[in-house]
């Protein structure tokens, strides 16, 4: 009971200006993800010395070479019976921008309300969101590499495209790495966790007197 009360007291505490600034910066970083790609896939082959490039944003796919690369990737993939990489296939693009927006608003709420509870809420939600997005991305790659048409001209064993790093797939060297928006999100998480840790550490520093005073009074 005491512990719960202590936690509740902690949650009801306000966060200091420095922490609020950290959360504000985290929100700004999150805003940047609208303008930056989350992930990049680049494929090299002897015939494609300059590579075919695909940038994934939170709301769209963007091919390199003015969008031509994504058409080329689809033309090539149709030989192995892979589904077209088109925006319509990605339900994520429908909800992700809104979730990011909502999380941003929650961060601003934490800045304005300045309670530990608000900070904890948004941090936890953001960690869940990040984890789910990564899983979702990985699952998408898995499905693309496994749902191959049985009548495809070229039969290849189902495969898992790389999520992080490089891999040789037939004549292609495929590289997959996070890009700026992912780093911004990582930064957001780091800032939120740091804000939380800072607040908790400050509470701990202030708490002993209460904690000691409590039992002594009883």
């Amino acid at each position, binding site marked *: 009971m005491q512990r719960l009360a202590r936690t509740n007291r902690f949650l009801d505490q306000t966060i200091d200006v420095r922490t609020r600034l950290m959360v504000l910066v985290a929100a700004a970083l999150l805003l940047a993800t609208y303008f930056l790609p989350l992930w990049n896939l680049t494929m090299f082959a002897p015939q494609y010395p300059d590579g075919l490039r695909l940038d994934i944003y939170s709301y769209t796919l963007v091919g390199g070479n003015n969008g*031509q690369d994504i*058409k*080329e990737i689809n*033309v090539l993939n149709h*030989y192995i019976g892979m589904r077209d990489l088109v925006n319509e296939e990605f339900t994520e693009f429908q909800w992700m921008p809104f979730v990011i927006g909502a999380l941003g608003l929650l961060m601003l709420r934490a800045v304005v309300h300045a309670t530990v509870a608000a900070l904890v809420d948004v941090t936890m939600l953001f960690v869940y969101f990040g984890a789910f997005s990564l899983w979702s991305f990985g699952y998408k790659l898995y499905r693309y590499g496994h749902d191959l048409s049985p009548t495809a*001209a*070229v039969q290849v064993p189902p495969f898992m495209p790389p999520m992080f790093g490089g891999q040789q797939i037939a004549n292609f060297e495929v590289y997959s790495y996070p890009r700026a928006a992912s780093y911004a999100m990582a930064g957001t998480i780091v800032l939120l966790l740091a804000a939380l840790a800072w607040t908790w550490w400050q509470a701990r520093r202030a708490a002993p007197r209460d904690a000691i005073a409590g039992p002594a009074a009883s």
Partner: protein
Amino acid sequence: MESQRLHAWARVLILAAAAAAATQCTPSRPASRAGGAAVQSDLAVAAQATYVAPGDLDQYYMFSSGGHSGQIYVYGLPSMRHLSTIPVFTPYPATGYGFDDDSKKMLGELTWGDAHHPALSETKGDYDGRWLFINEMNGRIARIDLRDFKTKQILGPIPNLHGNHASSFVTPNSEYAMMATRFSRPVPNRPVGVDRYATEYKGIIAGIKIDPASGEMSLAWQLLMPPFDYDLGDAGKNASDGWMFFTSYNTERATGKLEVTASQRDRDYIAAVDWRAVERAVASGAGDMIDGVRVIDPQKVPGLVFLMPCGKSPHGVDVAPNGNWIVGSGKLQGVTTVFNFEKVQTAIKNKDFTGEEDGIPVLKYESIKDAEVPVGLGPLHTQFGTDDWAYTSLFVDSAIAKWKLGTWEVVDKAPMSYSIGHLAAAEGDTVSPDGNYLVGLNKLSHGRHLSVGPSQPESSQLLDITEEKMKLLYDAFTEPEPHYAQIIKADKVKPIEVYPKEENKHPLAVWDINQAGVTRQGNRVTVKMVAVRSTLTPTDFEVAAGDQVTVAVTNIEQTTDELHGFGLLDYNINLVIDPGETKTVTFTAKKSGVFAFYCTNFCSALHQEMQGYMVVK
């Protein structure tokens, strides 16, 4: 005994003969070439100078006329690699040229042309990399757009003018290209006996107006000229901007065995045409309509044309970069003549004439000449380098002479293998020549290559002209037959690599496989076809015998180098469609049965599967 004596004598005789042979034998090579091949270090330098490593790019484009092949060949310099062929006046199945409706219509009834003088479009006398013009003998001139290296227009055969040799010669701001008669004939054309050649036959000089925005050519005017053979030309520039110069031979007005009869006079003429004055005359309504063309007779409108005497049977006339010197090369003499444009103007003003030809004044030779440069035998053409250097090809001497404008000093000669005709220096006919490279376009190769039988290739030889002595770098064996070539800095030409989808306005274009298909109106059948790796959609279609069929193929690729073909067997049809392009072919389905069509231009791993059938019922 007797026989032994005989043997002894025989031995003596053989020994004597051997001794004589050893001391007096005919040399195996001429004394002038006694030096033999270039020394080893020179070869290494030449090899390095021309070596363009795999994947690296050349510094210059050379657009070489293909002569009676009717085409233009594109080479890269300094490697001299043949990069591509631009079909112009002759069908070329490799690109489907002359098989689709548009190019077939452009070629008309002629499937042959004798292409001569490529002329890059110019701005302020310098190549601007927009268009390339080329003439051909059947009274035609073509425009190639350097945005896609495709022939966009063929103008002609134009009326009145016969044997369009003295062409294309673009003016400094691409206002005009020019055409002129080599084979005079009655104007308008009618059957008149050759015995009345001198009076009834006429030459024509035609101004071809170039639209400054689109490059579209139109026949603006013609000048009625004496029946000479107009041979070559060059547009005035800088000081002489506004003038055109044409050489002529057979000013004897002879017929029959011309090699004799047309070589009697010591001097023929360079016709100087004030084309701005012609423009003004046309604007004021001068001239008569002959066969639908405004033709001006210089007898009736004085001041348009003047004749500059030039010895002997001149071939090339080339205006120096400053525009003030005009170099006329008399092919039957040992000098090339340099005229001074300022002096030409003064002579015109002072009426310093020595006679006239059909009312056209002949300027006094001594009054307009600056120099007779002793370049060597058979001078044909002159190109220019930096620092007032001039390079003249010598057909008879089989060499190039290097000489200096102003001092008229001949400083070097480079032997050519063999019998050089034209020559082309890097941007060597512009107001600012680059120097660097010079290419001799030789008529004969005489087995300087692996034997390919009696029909031998031409030879084009690359020279380094950066130093005092010209240095031979490379032998290339070019398609017949380079009459002239122009060399342009590579970065001035900016071609596209695919036709952007949004620019394709073809009414029969389809970009979606689902919209491909067959429509019929009476006996006219239209097949809208999509080509994309690796299917031609629809994969089959049916028509009835006698139907007029139009197949419109759209290559919906936007990837570089993803060309597709549409070859229809037994129907003499082969289209090649570039990425983003739509081409149509219209034919009557005369033969019934089943006919395969397939992609003729290797495209992908499943190229062999890119095929289908036309069923004619």
